């Protein structure tokens, strides 16, 4: 019986959100979870730094949030399901987030997806 936990072969461009990442990203993910509620989104927009501090984000996480940099958020332990709620505050969907992470324009990213169907 094989388990991915024992499979050391990394998958390029992919972070497995395991226990190690869950420990690292807990504060960041907890803040993003709070964005399910409109009050959380409004409080963040009213004072970003104070809101990050309230959840105990570290400097790396705060910088990633400040720079709106999704890859840095993932490195800092962010889980994409919660980060999607952060992106939602700015009206960004998964294709905008995909474009940012791959360094493509949103149009080029969408074209790549269409191409995958051919």
């Amino acid at each position, binding site marked *: 019986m094989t388990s991915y936990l024992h499979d050391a072969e990394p998958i390029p461009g992919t972070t*497995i959100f395991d226990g190690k990442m869950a420990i690292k990203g807990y504060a960041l993910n907890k803040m993003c979870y709070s964005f399910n509620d409109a009050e959380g989104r409004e409080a963040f927009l009213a004072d970003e730094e104070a809101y990050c501090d309230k959840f105990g984000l570290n400097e790396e996480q705060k910088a990633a949030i400040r720079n709106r940099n999704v890859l840095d958020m993932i490195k800092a332990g962010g889980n994409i399901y919660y980060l999607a709620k952060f992106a939602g505050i700015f009206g960004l969907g998964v294709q905008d987030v995909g474009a940012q992470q791959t360094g493509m324009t949103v149009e080029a990213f969408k074209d790549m997806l269409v191409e995958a169907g051919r």
Partner: protein
Amino acid sequence: MAQIIGGITTSHIPAIGNAISKELFDDPYWVPFFEGYPPVRDWLADSKPDVAIVIYNDHGLNFFLDKLPTFAVGAAPEYHNADEGWGLATLDPYPGDPELSWHVIESLVADEFDITSCQEMKVDHGFTVPMSLFWPNRKEVGIKTIPVCINTVQHPLPSPSRCYRLGQAIGRAIESYDKDLKVVVLGTGGLSHQLDGERAGFINKEFDLMCMEKIVSDPEALTGYSIHDIVRLAGAQGTELILWLAMRGALTGTVSKLHGNYHIPISNTASGLLLLENAA
């Protein structure tokens, strides 16, 4: 006795919910997706199931990382939708069937699946989008639901093999229920997609089409994959294939495919639809 009349798989991408609320059914982007659904709705209208077991994954609405069950089963009189952070309109509650839920829970635990029971459970797009696709008229029909939530957020995820066996145990649970109910099992999510990392946008058509064939004719062929294999072959969120496998496990009779559709892309995802009939 209760009887499982069939299983249905469908993608559950949030953008679909948005397209439904905006009624984009004739939009050229959406036509190849929505045109797959009328045959399923016709079958549901003819076969009239009483209960839908909805096997899905929560995306951070009901569960956070503070307490994250591997398998959770709803046992509520009704299930509420809520804002997932995008400010979309909240959908009306979904009626449950607590008596059947508790039967399933008791049966699963007796079968050594130690699940988490939930007398309150908010349901997100993984649950609501398929319900909207299959039962746009759900209030007239009065379909009851039992959400079965499988963790795909926090690794370790349960293996494909384990999820298939969970489905088999759900099948045994339903078939040992002493009320004459018709039950349909939904497996939502999939197919290949990846939202995170430099590999975002990854899609694997060949693997998806193989899965859509094997899940009908030879599901056990898919149970040999590890979660790591599926991340590699179908993308980080392609692991939702385990939800399809759990659905398929519950179909313990003679299974035949009545309808299918596959389309790339919807949002970042290869969307798949299958209607399977389960004959006793």
